[in-house]
């Protein structure tokens, strides 16, 4: 995993209030109960600020699992990969 994944993990830990969370591609709203629509918006705003990205409404909806989120961030030029 690269440093960008570590930075993203910190955002997840902070917003989902899970200090031990390990970010894996399979993580989504089904496996993580706290990842609901409220926390998703907080997460996406935090990702935009931290990584200096802007998501479209469709990308915001499609980013509700970690694999898609990382893929979309990479497509937007972030040097992030698993």
């Amino acid at each position, binding site marked *: 995993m690269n440093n960008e994944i570590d930075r993203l993990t910190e955002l997840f830990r902070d917003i989902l209030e899970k200090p031990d969370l390990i970010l894996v591609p399979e993580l989504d709203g089904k496996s993580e109960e706290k990842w609901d629509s409220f926390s998703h*918006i907080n997460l996406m705003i935090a990702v935009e600020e931290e990584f200096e990205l802007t998501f479209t409404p469709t990308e915001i909806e499609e980013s509700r699992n970690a694999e898609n989120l990382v893929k979309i961030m990479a497509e937007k030029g972030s040097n992030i990969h698993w």
Partner: protein
Amino acid sequence: MTHPSQSAAVTWQFSEQDQLWFANFSGDFNPIHVDSVQARRTLFGTQVVHGIHLVIGALNSICQNMTGLRKIVRLDTQFIAPVLIGDTVQLFVQDMSGDHEDQISWITNHGRNCAKMKVSFEQDTRQSINLPISVEKLVCHEASEEDYLHGGGSLPLFLNGAELSEKYPDLARVVCPLQIAQIIATSRLVGMQLPGLHSLYNGLSVEFSQSEPDAPSELTYQTLRYLPRYKRLKLSLASAGLTGTLEASVRPTPITQPKMAHITNLVQSKAWKSKRAIVIGGSRGLGEAAAKILAAAGAEVLITYLAGENDANAVAEDIRSAGGCAEVLRYDVLKPNEPDFKKLAAFGPDLVCYFATPKILLNTSGFSESKHDFYAQYFVTGMWNLVTGFLGANTGPFRLFNPSTNYIDNVVPGALEYAMAKADSEVLCNYMAEEFNNVSCCSRRLPPIKTDQSVSLLHKEVGDAVSELLPILLGDARSV
């Protein structure tokens, strides 16, 4: 977040009276807090406790063991999830001794954090504060995108010290009244002004310093940032001795169904001419769309509602203005009363569409027997009582349309009990069709459809009610 040895400082359950108390105390009369009929059409389906009421309650508990006068130096609070009227929530405070100047507290709802707060105090030498005990009530403002982008203004401060002392005596005893007035003013700002009518309060972050004695008693605000894709605002705040920011969201507006003028253009058939249809739960959403489709297809329609009398009358008026026939009746499927039921039975339906549904909240995981029973009361017991009641009243043969859900085939998190109860309703329909000569049934598993039930903070592509229901009501649901 809760330490295993930590016990709750307070357990709260907020009632209708508590909601009204805080609305009067703060001036925040947003309907999501105080109007059960309007609140049922919001994201949460019921009244939401004012976030700042939680903060005031938490501060009161923190002040319980404090002696002398204190001034808040810094307050950070985040509202993570809504607390609904009737919810039992618990306040946890890191240290209740009153010895620490920094206090962290959080509020949980069924073990899940819904608000957290960090507050710092210092000793205070109280100055006399001259604040009005009330100000003119604001009209809840329906703000525009322009307001969100460039909003700004000021609100006068007020504080009813007697009310505060009675309800939250430790807070009134310890904390500077001006600061309490400033904190509650932020609730009025969000709920009544900006974002106003369609608002959600996300969080507050303020710092306090010494205020000038003659500083104006008002809270000024200005949009710092608006993110349209998230409908999220950040406002700057300033008041006597206060600077900070707050974050708020624009919540989705209630979903409206197309007018009859539009639906009559889509419905060419008069398949229901000279037939009578009862639409249980027809004041909005799928029921509203079904009532209009059936009326457009020639049916005489009786629309029932539980709480939305005005909504139901508006649907009926729309149907009548397009030349259709529609009546309205209040009917509670959980507590049907004899006179209302007699009126329903006397209508002599050829079709009964059963849309009675409570708010579906997809906010828990696992299985809850009580949640299943709650839904089953509507989808199974209510339907059984209605159908067997009609049979007992000899209303004649009729067809029953049971709108089910495709969550039965593809269960989504939090919807397990809802899907199970809907599956039960399908079984019940099959049984009734088999056992009762005068009843035929049509259950259809519908996808998520754009209604108040499916509304979300996130952009989601879902079907529309008329497109989904039209082929069913003009096809399979027709009389056999």
